[in-house]
C-alpha cells in the first residue's frame, strides 16, 4: 500500500518555499548579539545560551544544596559520629567535645536544612528547570526567532545570578545563614534577635528571594508573551507540543503567585525594620516583652502558601511537559489524550490556587474552613490521575526505545504515583493531625516534587543535550545513572513514611532522647547511607555532562530521534535567529507518530489531499 503521506523531498528547500518570511535576515542585526566573547557567553541575549546559563547555574546550586543535605544527614544518621574531618570546610560550625569528637552545631544544622530547602525549591527546581527548558524550547518549538524581549530575558538570568550571589554570601556570615525553615515563618523570620540566623542571615535571604522573584517575573512575562504572540504561521494553540503548554501555564502560575509572596515579604520587611506589627503579637524574648501587638502570624502563612502551593506545581508542571514529549517520541506513539492533557494542566493550575491552606490544617485555622480546602485538595488528584493514565496509555503497546531520557521519564511517572498517593492521605485534615510535620510529609514532597522533578529535568537534559551542545551524552553512563538514582532515591524516601507514621517529627536535630524516635536509629543510618550513594550517582551525571560537551558522540543529522517538533529542523550548530532562512510553517499537531504506517511526520509537512481524505475516513 502506498502511503497517503507526501513528504517534501528536501526539508531545507521546502521550508524556504513554504515557510514564513519575517525578513529577519534582511537587516544584519543578528550578529551584533554574538560578536564577542562577552555578548556571546556572558551577557548573551540568545535564548539558547541563556538556557545553558540557567542549567549550569542550576547544577552548581544542586551540588551545593545536595552537599548540605549530606551534612545534616550525617547528623541524623550517625548522631554520635565524629565529623571533625569536616572542620576545614565548616570551621566553627563543628563543635568539639572535650574528648575530641566533632559534631555539627545545632544552629548550623537548622541553617543547613533551611538553605537546602530554599536552594532546591527556588534555585534548582524553579530556575534550573523551567529557566532552562522554557528558554531552550519555547522559541524553538513555537517557531520564533527568540523570546519576545531578549533583553528582559537576559536580565531574568542576571537577576537569578544576583539572587544566588546574595544567598551564597549569606552562607559566610559569622552568624550563619537564615535557619528558620524554607517557609520562613514569623516570628523566627520577623525578629532579628529570635535566633542566630534571624538577623543578617534573614536579611540576605529576603533580599535574595526578592531578586529571585524579579527574575521569575521577567522570565515568565517573556515566556507567556512569546507563546501567545510569536508562534509561527499555522502553529495554533492546539498544535503546540505539551512541553510548551506546560511551560506556558507554569509561567502564568508564577506571574500570578510570586507577587503575592513579595507582598508577604514586604510586610515582613516592615515588621523587621520599621517596627510594625503585621505578623507579631505579644511576644516575649529572653523574659522581655516586646512592644509588638495586634499582629497575626497566620497572615504570613496564608500569603506564603498562596505562593507556596502553586510553587510546587511551578516545579512539577515543566517536568510533566518534558515527560509527555519524551514519552511520545520514545514510544513512537502519539501522546494519549492530548486535549485531556492540556485540560488537566489547566485544571491543576486553577486548583493549585485554592488549596493552599492544606499546609495550615494544624496552624489553628478554622476547621470548617479546612473542610473546603480538603475537598479541593482531593479534587486535584483527578487531573493528576488523568495525566498518569495518559502517560501509561502512551507507553502501552508502544515500540519503546529504552534510553536514558525515556527511562527517566518512566521513572518520573513512578515517582509521581508514589508521591501523589501519599498526598491524598495528607489532604485529609483528620489524618494530617497525626502526619503533619513528620517525616511522612518529608517523604511525600521529596518523592512527588523533589525526585520527580529531578527525573523530569534529567529526562530533558539527556533528550535535548544534542540540541544544546551538538553532541550526545554517553548512554551507558546515563543508564547506570538512572538505575542508581531510582533505587537509591526510593531507599532514602520510602522508609521515611514509616518514620512519619510513627510520629517522628521533621526538622529535629536529634532523636536520641525519646523512646518513640530513638528506636529508628538503624533506619536513619540506612537513609543516610542511601543519600550518600544517591549523591555519588549524581556525580556520574556531572562527569557525563561535561565530558560529553567535548568528547560526546557528534550529532550528524538534524533530527536524530526522528521527532516531529520544530526544534529538530534547525541547524545542528545553533545560530542566532534559529533558522537560517524562513521559519517553517506548521501544518499539523506535534504527535503524528505511527500515523498511516509512517514512523513520524514532522509538523512542517503539509497535509496532502490523500491524507485529508484518509483522515475523514478514520473519523467515520
Amino acid at each position, binding site marked *: 500500500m502506498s502511503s497517503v503521506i507526501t513528504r517534501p523531498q528536501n526539508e531545507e528547500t521546502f521550508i524556504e518555499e513554504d515557510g514564513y518570511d519575517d525578513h529577519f535576515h534582511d537587516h544584519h542585526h543578528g550578529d551584533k548579539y554574538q560578536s564577542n566573547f562577552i555578548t556571546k557567553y556572558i551577557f548573551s541575549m540568545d535564548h539558547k545560551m541563556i538556557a545553558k546559563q540557567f542549567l549550569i547555574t542550576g547544577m552548581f546550586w544542586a551540588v551545593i544544596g545536595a552537599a548540605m543535605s549530606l551534612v545534616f544527614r550525617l547528623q541524623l544518621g550517625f548522631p554520635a559520629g565524629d565529623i571533625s574531618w569536616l572542620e576545614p570546610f565548616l570551621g566553627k560550625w563543628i563543635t568539639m567535645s572535650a574528648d575530641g569528637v566533632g559534631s555539627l552545631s545545632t544552629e548550623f544544622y537548622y541553617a543547613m536544612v533551611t538553605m537546602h530547602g530554599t536552594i532546591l525549591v527556588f534555585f534548582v527546581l524553579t530556575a534550573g528547570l523551567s529557566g532552562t527548558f522554557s528558554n531552550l524550547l519555547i522559541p524553538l518549538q513555537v517557531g*520564533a*526567532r527568540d523570546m519576545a524581549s531578549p533583553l528582559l530575558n537576559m536580565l531574568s538570568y542576571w537577576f537569578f545570578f544576583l539572587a544566588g550571589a546574595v544567598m551564597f554570601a549569606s552562607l559566610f556570615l559569622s552568624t550563619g545563614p537564615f535557619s528558620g525553615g524554607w517557609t520562613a515563618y514569623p516570628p523566627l523570620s520577623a525578629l532579628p534577635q529570635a535566633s542566630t540566623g534571624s538577623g543578617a542571615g534573614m536579611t540576605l535571604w529576603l533580599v535574595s528571594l526578592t531578586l529571585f522573584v524579579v527574575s521569575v517575573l521577567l522570565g515568565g512575562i517573556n515566556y507567556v508573551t512569546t507563546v501567545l504572540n510569536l508562534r509561527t*504561521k499555522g502553529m495554533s494553540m492546539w498544535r503546540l507540543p505539551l512541553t510548551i503548554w506546560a511551560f506556558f501555564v507554569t509561567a502564568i502560575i508564577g506571574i500570578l503567585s510570586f507577587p503575592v509572596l513579595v507582598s508577604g515579604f514586604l510586610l515582613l520587611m516592615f515588621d523587621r525594620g520599621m517596627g510594625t506589627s503585621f505578623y507579631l503579637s505579644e511576644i516575649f524574648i529572653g523574659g522581655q516583652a516586646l512592644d509588638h501587638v495586634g499582629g497575626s502570624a497566620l497572615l504570613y502563612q496564608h500569603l506564603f502558601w498562596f505562593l507556596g502551593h502553586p510553587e510546587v506545581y511551578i516545579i512539577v508542571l515543566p517536568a510533566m511537559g518534558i515527560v509527555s514529549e519524551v514519552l511520545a517520541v520514545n514510544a513512537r506513539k502519539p501522546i494519549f489524550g492530548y486535549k485531556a492533557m492540556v485540560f488537566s494542566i489547566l485544571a491543576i493550575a486553577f486548583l493549585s490556587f485554592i488549596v493552599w491552606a492544606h499546609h495550615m490544617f494544624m496552624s489553628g485555622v478554622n476547621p470548617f474552613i479546612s473542610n473546603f480546602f480538603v475537598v479541593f485538595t482531593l479534587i486535584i488528584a483527578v487531573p493528576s490521575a488523568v495525566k498518569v493514565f495518559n502517560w501509561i496509555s502512551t507507553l502501552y503497546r508502544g515500540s519503546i526505545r529504552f534510553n536514558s531520557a525515556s527511562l527517566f521519564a518512566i521513572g518520573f511517572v513512578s515517582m509521581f504515583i508514589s508521591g501523589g498517593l501519599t498526598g491524598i492521605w495528607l489532604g485529609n485534615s483528620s489524618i494530617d493531625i497525626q502526619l503533619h510535620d513528620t517525616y511522612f510529609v518529608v517523604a511525600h514532597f521529596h518523592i512527588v516534587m523533589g525526585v520527580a522533578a529531578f527525573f523530569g529535568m534529567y529526562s530533558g537534559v539527556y533528550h535535548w543535550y544534542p540540541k544544546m551542545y551538538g553532541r550526545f551524552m554517553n548512554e551507558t553512563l546515563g543508564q547506570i545513572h538512572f538505575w542508581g538514582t531510582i533505587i537509591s532515591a526510593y531507599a532514602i524516601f520510602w522508609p521515611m513514611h514509616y518514620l512519619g507514621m510513627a510520629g517522628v517529627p521533621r526538622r529535629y536535630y536529634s532523636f536520641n532522647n525519646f523512646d518513640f524516635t530513638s528506636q529508628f536509629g538503624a533506619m536513619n543510618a540506612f537513609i543516610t547511607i542511601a543519600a550518600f550513594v544517591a549523591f555519588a550517582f549524581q556525580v556520574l551525571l556531572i562527569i557525563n555532562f561535561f565530558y560529553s560537551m567535548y568528547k560526546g558522540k557528534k550529532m550528524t543529522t538534524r533530527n536524530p530521534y526522528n521527532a516531529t517538533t520544530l526544534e529538530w529542523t534547525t541547524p545542528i550548530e545553533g545560530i542566532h535567529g534559529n533558522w537560517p532562512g524562513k521559519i517553517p510553517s506548521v501544518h499539523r499537531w506535534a504527535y503524528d507518530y505511527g500515523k498511516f504506517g509512517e514512523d513520524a511526520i514532522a509538523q512542517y509537512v503539509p497535509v496532502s489531499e490523500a491524507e485529508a481524505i484518509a483522515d475523514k475516513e478514520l473519523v467515520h
Partner: protein
Amino acid sequence: MSTTGLLSRNKIHPLRLALFISCGSILMMFGALTSAYIVRQSAGNWLEFDLPNLFYVSTGVLLLSSVTLQACYSAFGKGHVTLYRGLLALTLILGLSFVILQFQAWEAMFDAGLPLKGNPSPSFVYVLSGLHAAHVLGGLVSLVVAVIHGFRLPVLATPRRKLRLQLTLTYWHFMDFLWIYLLLFFVLQR
C-alpha cells in the same frame, strides 16, 4: 529588537502584551495586600480612623494627569508639536505633585497620631499607598524619558515612538486605576 520582525502578523505588539501581563502581576501583589487587610481586620482589635483629606486631593491630581497624558498621545499622533510637548511636561509635573501630596498625606496621618508602627490598621494604609507610590515613581521615570525624547528628538510619529509613548500611557492609566481601587477599598472597607 531582534524578534520584532514578526510584528506584521500580530494584533497586539509583544511589548504591549508583556506590559499588560506585568500589570496583572502588580495587581496580584496589591490584591494580596488588600486580602491580608481584610483577613487581619476581621480578626478584631482594629483601629478605625478617617483618611486624611489630602488623599482626595492627590486623587484629583492623578486623574487629571491621566487625562493630560491621553491628550498628549493624541496630539503626538496628529503632529501638534506644541500641544504635545506642553501636555507631556504638564503630565510630568502633575505626576510629581501626586507623589509629593501622598508624602504630605502620610505626614498628616502621622501628625494625627497614627504612626507607622502600632495597630496594623494605619500600617496597612501606609504600606499600600507607599507601594503604590513606588510604582508611580517607576512611571515617572518613563515619563522623564518621554519628556527627554519629546524635547530632544524631532517630533515624528514613527510606529516605534508611538509605541513607546503608548506603553508609558498604558502604565500611567494603570497606576491611576490602581489608586482608585485602593482609595475605594480604604473608604468602603472600614
